[in-house]
């Protein structure tokens, strides 16, 4: 009895631990790190990247890779306070595109969790057989160097002297900027109603802006209230126009009788710097055959821009805004260096759009 119970408890514990190990993917992980297939090699590499083990990830690359550890780390972990530095790899879906005895082409779709939501990065990687294991051939990352130079900056800056709070009611006040919603369009999308359009700062001072919309029923009671959040440029310089989009998930268009729009502008200190040019914009398809608007961003000022957001408004042939989409760029915008971007366009919109307009929002770290 005594030794029987001892043996039972010991064996049962070992068996239970083994079952859980198998359930947790221990075997799969073991096989993955053995890298006996091209997919497993890519999965193992992604697993190291996910764990931020860049040194081990780099060590697992094929020797023919035209990169060094620093470039590889910069490519995956980001640099210069870019959005990639605020991201971590969540998942990596691996699918083989082509394989022969010693070479393979594997597509990896990386999903990054970032400070601004999830980001997709699709890459086609070459994998080579190296004895009994497969190794990824990492392509040389293209980093444009910024030539040393002096960039003179003399853009305007607006500062605000606020009212002294101790002053009486009726003391001299400076008004908030005057903004105007120049267009508004309510459209129905699968599972939601979307309000979109454009808003202009009609004033001669910068405006800090939020646009909210309230959907109303036939009896005037509200259905839902939402704001544009990050689908707008919140800082508008004088005469600047921004598209906006407000999503109402779970609302059906036939329940909506009217929409109350509310554009709230504040007077804030602002700077006209940096100017970001959007060049070579063109409609195209991406690697996953999705419609995208592609182009390049060029930071024309002398300071790096850490994170840029591209906001695009699409118009039909009557000039009405039919869609607004956005995309974050995961590379920092170094001065004068073109950085590519691509924003998704839904298929039905792509077929109807006649024109588009792109503006760029930006975030620059306080320490820059």
């Amino acid at each position, binding site marked *: 009895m005594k030794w029987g119970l001892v043996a039972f408890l010991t064996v049962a514990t070992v068996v239970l631990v083994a079952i859980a190990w198998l359930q947790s993917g221990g075997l799969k992980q073991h096989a993955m790190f053995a890298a006996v297939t091209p997919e497993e090699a890519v999965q193992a590499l992604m697993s190291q990247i996910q764990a931020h083990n860049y040194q081990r990830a780099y060590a697992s690359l094929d020797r023919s890779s035209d990169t060094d550890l620093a470039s590889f780390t910069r490519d995956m972990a980001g640099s210069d306070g870019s959005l990639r530095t605020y991201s971590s790899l969540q998942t990596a879906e691996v699918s083989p595109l082509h394989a022969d005895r010693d070479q393979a082409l594997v597509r990896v779709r990386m999903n990054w969790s970032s400070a601004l939501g999830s980001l997709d990065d699709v890459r086609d990687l070459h994998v080579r057989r190296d004895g009994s294991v497969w190794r990824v051939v990492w392509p040389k990352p293209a980093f444009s160097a910024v030539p040393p130079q002096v960039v003179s900056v003399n853009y305007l800056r607006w500062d605000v002297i606020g009212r002294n709070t101790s002053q009486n*009611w009726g003391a001299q006040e400076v*008004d*908030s900027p*005057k*903004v*105007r*919603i120049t267009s*508004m369009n*309510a459209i129905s999308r699968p599972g939601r109603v979307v309000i979109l359009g454009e808003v202009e700062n009609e004033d001669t001072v910068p405006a800090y802006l939020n646009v909210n919309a309230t959907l109303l029923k036939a009896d005037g009671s509200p259905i839902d209230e939402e704001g544009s959040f990050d689908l707008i440029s919140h800082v508008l310089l004088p005469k600047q126009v921004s598209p906006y989009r407000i999503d109402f998930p779970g609302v059906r268009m036939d329940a*909506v*009788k*009217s*929409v*109350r*729009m*509310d*554009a*709230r*502008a504040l007077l804030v200190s602002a700077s006209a710097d940096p100017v970001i040019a959007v060049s070579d914009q063109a409609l195209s398809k991406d690697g996953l055959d999705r419609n995208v608007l592609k182009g390049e961003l060029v930071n024309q000022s002398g300071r790096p821009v850490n994170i840029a957001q591209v906001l695009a408004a699409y118009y039909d042939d009557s000039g009405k805004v039919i869609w607004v989409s956005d995309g974050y760029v995961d590379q920092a915008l170094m001065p004068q260096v073109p950085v590519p971007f691509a924003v998704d366009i839904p298929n039905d919109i792509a077929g109807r759009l006649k024109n588009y307009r792109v503006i760029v929002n930006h975030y620059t770290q306080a320490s820059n």
Partner: protein
Amino acid sequence: MKNMAELTLAVKNISPRFVKAATLVIAACALAIAQSSPELPQVHLDAAGLAPRPVEELTGTTIARHYALAWRDLASALESGRAGGLGDEFVGFAKDRLVQRIGEQNQAGVHVRIVDHGHHLKAIFYSTDGSAMQLLDQAELEIQTFDGNKLLDTQNAPHEYIVLVTPGADRWYVRDLEEVSAKPF
């Protein structure tokens, strides 16, 4: 400042008829609010012919509601001797004066009970920039004055107030409240 851009799917222009209709709706809403909250006094707002700016329906309803809340808080503060809740609905001179009144009332051991039978508000001025509105309030109040538990006096007459209300972040505050000689209703 809040720039309210009201765009409806069917664009409407504000017309005098619309203003009248809005006034009626505001009155109805105000009544409904008063009836749905038994603790609140009844407040009826009449904004017909308001100059130089007409009042939006939502604004009128908000003013009526917060004016009712203001009187509820005022009555409660005068009776309990606690001025804490006045800041929710009063601001500026009105608040300062009421706080002082309640402080001195407490020192004297006096308190006042107001039985509020309702307010008929007439909007008489609304500034173009929307930063102030003047109201004439004809109130039906029964005011009982006590020293400790001893009833000193009861007044049960119409009262008339000139009220200045100004907008805050989410409500209209009573900035000035002056009682004037009442005219018969």
